[in-house]
């Protein structure tokens, strides 16, 4: 549907005579202010949790994307215990053997550099929930790409939402499928999918469904498959951040107001959020 609206603006854009695009002169562009960009997705199932730290960069004048972030230091705290963070090439990390991330607990992150930049953020790990993952397969028209008229093996994944609370989810899958072509040639097809984030708004306590396209097309005969399904139960900030990234690239309207990417980092950019993982192994022989 969104391609339709793009057609809609063809005419309007066509009204803009060629040659009316010029450098903006006599305009003072905004000054660059360096900020730390922090991205952390932590989970009780991690052995090591990583907090990526980078920098924004100026877009007016000479564009230098490799802005130095200086020497970093930081800590993570659950309100009682505080652990210093170790550094690695892309930011900071902590080993859960020294500082354990627990279900339902709140954690505060603090990072600073030697140039006076500092950020703070908070996340709360989702509670442990007894999710039951149900999965089945079906041959359905392909959902993506140029071969939409052909059928592929698809996973139908269902999870019952926990009622009377806000929940946010994501589903991932990976697997290997073996098949045989009409020529008799054996093939192995591997895939790795990560779906769009979901909220239970409007579906509280009901069954949520995902349709995962494995990409294994029906011109080959299925011999066997081993597929692992992951259910990620996430914080709201995880959902808001990923939704804002999807919207950022897919507004559908070239004249729409700018869409900022969600951030819960005080003093900087990015997100510090959490998730828990449940999984199911699905086999076909």
């Amino acid at each position, binding site marked *: 549907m969104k391609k339709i609206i793009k057609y*809609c603006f063809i005419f309007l854009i066509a009204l803009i*005579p060629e040659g009316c695009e010029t450098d903006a002169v006599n305009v003072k562009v905004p000054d660059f202010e360096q900020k730390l960009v922090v991205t952390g997705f932590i989970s009780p199932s991690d052995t090591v949790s990583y907090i990526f730290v*980078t920098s924004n960069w100026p877009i007016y004048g000479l564009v230098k994307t490799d802005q130095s972030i200086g020497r970093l230091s930081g800590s993570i705290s659950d309100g009682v215990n505080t652990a210093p963070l170790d550094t690695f090439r892309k930011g900071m990390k902590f080993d859960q053997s020294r500082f354990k991330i627990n279900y339902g607990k709140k954690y505060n992150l603090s990072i600073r550099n030697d140039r006076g930049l500092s950020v703070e953020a908070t996340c709360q790990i989702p509670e442990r929930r007894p999710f039951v993952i149900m999965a089945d397969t079906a041959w359905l028209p392909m959902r993506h790409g140029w071969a939409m008229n052909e059928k592929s093996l698809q996973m139908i994944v269902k999870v019952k939402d926990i009622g009377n609370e806000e929940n946010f989810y994501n589903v991932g899958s990976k697997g290997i499928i073996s098949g045989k072509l009409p020529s008799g040639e054996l093939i192995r097809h591997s895939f790795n999918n990560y779906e769009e984030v979901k909220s239970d708004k409007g579906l509280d306590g009901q069954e949520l469904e995902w349709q995962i396209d494995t990409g294994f097309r029906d011109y080959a005969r299925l011999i066997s498959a081993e597929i692992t399904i*992951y259910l990620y139960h996430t914080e709201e900030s995880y959902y808001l951040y990923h939704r804002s990234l999807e919207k950022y690239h897919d507004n559908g309207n070239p004249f729409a107001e700018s869409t900022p990417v969600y951030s819960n980092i005080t003093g900087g950019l*990015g997100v510090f959020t959490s998730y828990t993982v449940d999984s199911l192994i699905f086999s076909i022989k």
Partner: protein
Amino acid sequence: MKKFFAASFLLFLAFLLHGQAVKHTISGFVREDVSGESLIGVNIYVPSFKTGTTTNTYGFYSLTIPQSGTIELVFSYVGYNSETFQVQADRDVEFNVSLKPGVVLGEVTVKGDRIEKQSESVKMSTVNLQPRQVKNVPSLLGEKDVLKVLQLMPGVQKGSEGNSGIYVRGGGPDQNLIILDDAIVYNASHLFGFFSLFNGDALKSVELTKGGFPARFGGRLSSVLEMNMKDGNREEWNGEGGIGLISSRLTVEGPIKKGKSSLLVSGRRTYADIVMKPFILKFSDENTGYYFYDLNAKVNYDLGQRDRLYLSGYFGKDKFYLKNKSQGVIENVGFLWGNSTGTLRWNHLFNNKLFANTSFIYSSYQFGIYDKYKVVTEEKDFYAEYYSGIRDLSLKYDLDFIHSTRHWFKAGGLMIFHRFKPHAFIEVDVPANINIRSFKVTEGVESGLYAEDTWQPVESFKVNAGLRFSHFIASKNQYHFLEPRLSAAWRFSNDLALKASYASMNQYIHMISGTGISLPTDLWVPTTDRIRPQQSRQVAMGLVKDLKSPEISVSLEGYYKTMQNVLGYREGASFLELDEAGSGLGVNWEDNVTAGKAWSYGAEFLIQKKTGRFTGWVGYTLSWTQMQFDSLNFGKKFWARYDRRHDISVVGTYRIKDRITISGTWVYGTGNAVTLPLSDYTALYHNPLRSEYGIPPGEELPFLFGDRVSDYSEKNNFRMRAYHRFDLGIQFHKQKRWGERTWEISFYNLYNRKNPFYYYTEEESVNGNELYGRLKQVSLFPIIPSVTYSFRF
């Protein structure tokens, strides 16, 4: 308490009845001499009593004065010869008057010596336009446009380049009540807002009220634009029209039954699609085009001395289409939008003081997008359609009770049945096994009751006080408010007045727009159980001075307006977002909007000359507009997109000779506030199933991959460059045997100023492998000459 009210009522009655026995009423209708067209706002003055009145919307007047012998009545109206009559005032008299146009070849002249002065009227914050004024102002591509002329008045701002949307005293375009013959017009623009849908040839009067709203108006926060169509010539058939670069128009009017009934039909259509079609088909498989048309029609009929019926309607449509047929695939894509209105009005004169109008009104606005895709060889179809709209059915009743020259009461009521279709969506994709049909209809009932009195207790003081009770029924909740209104004018001297006003307004329907410009995609939605009505309070104060020679009026006004529950899209929300992706929520526009507050204040200066060889005005507005939403800009205040510190308009028309008129317009405005990116960064996604990126040697790490995104910091953090432009037009008139013709040559943006329409950022390679970022500007209209041929027969 009851005794107090009873005593007050008796006192009031006694006051009204005081002097009744010795007074007589002169009443009647004022019409144009040649056509029989009723004239609105004609000034009627009785020099011997130093008092007077004006005609109402239907040309009716009533003047109650003490018993006397023969008195002199002066009828005057801008653009018409003043007429003085001797009337025997020893009894009630019905006295109908015809005024002769004093217009020669488009010039506005008043040959009488007295028209109503600005300083005498209790109205403030009001702009009156004569359609003929509109015809003199140079315009883009020669298309005369009422709304664009209103944009040249202080307190009224344009949105972006070429756009006909109006922003009044910091209010959004949805906060303007645009009425054509009592019918609400929801989308007043053609071609993405570049042209308004009001065809000046069919209009009789245009009045914009920016503040000090009388109680009879309600339902919008910022302005009321009231337009009335011509009734049609009752005496003879005539017409006018024009041929322009992008459209042509024709208006025909005449009597159905001479002196008793008349008809007017006016139409306009663009023809770029027809002209370009052969060329497009020659070079491309795609047949693409755009057109708009509008049609106004009105008929009226006298049922007797006291009753008159009017039936009027407007129908307009814009359509953009693209048809592609190649390699066995037929694709048909397009979008269209249009308004239609219909009004049936019944005027009834109960007696020489009491006039009533009853209106049944239909109004509708529809917007739609369609995409049909067919693979002929495989018989595979894809079909999608999206549309939104609003449809109103209204009943309106208004009473004018002109008790005396000191009291003019108005009272009445309005009930509107709204039917909203915020969005309907159909998607049929047979191969993909998709068949979605999603419709949602919301209804609401809006009503209002009002009473107001224009009271002149002494010659130097006039007040209009009123109260409006407004009510809206949403699905479960009901909202109702009392809206007090007050305007007062105190004349210090014969030509200097101090005016002040207060108005409380409520708005029950809202337009949400995800863009900075007026687009047909803007969505009309009602107040609901979750979305509260918009509310405003506005105070204004001003000075008006009328100079006699030359006849110039000067006004200075200041205002302060607060607005509550103003709606906007949430960040990232879109009208095409039919459901919240990744949730179980279906079609619910309420989740896509957020409510906030706004403040606007400023000062407006206007110096205007309406008569003589040279006419025109200079308007200056100094204003500030800020907004605050919990869900936008992190809850912090920000400047509204159309916050404009300085706005200047200079408009002049000079009749060099009887046959040549030259006109010019210069406008200047502070740049719009827009959101520009401050910097860029990489935003990382989370996908723990991959492991290729960012892994320190020897460490297990989930894969994180990212996108380059921009940091916008604060909303509307940047000012565009100031906007200014000069337009020039020259009209050559000539009388012909069959009537009159006018050639107009005009230049839009004569000095070819490259005004910014929007900005974007662009990077280019420098020094081999380095990137350099620039802010680029897109301008819309360079100098655009145009030629228009107009005729009147």
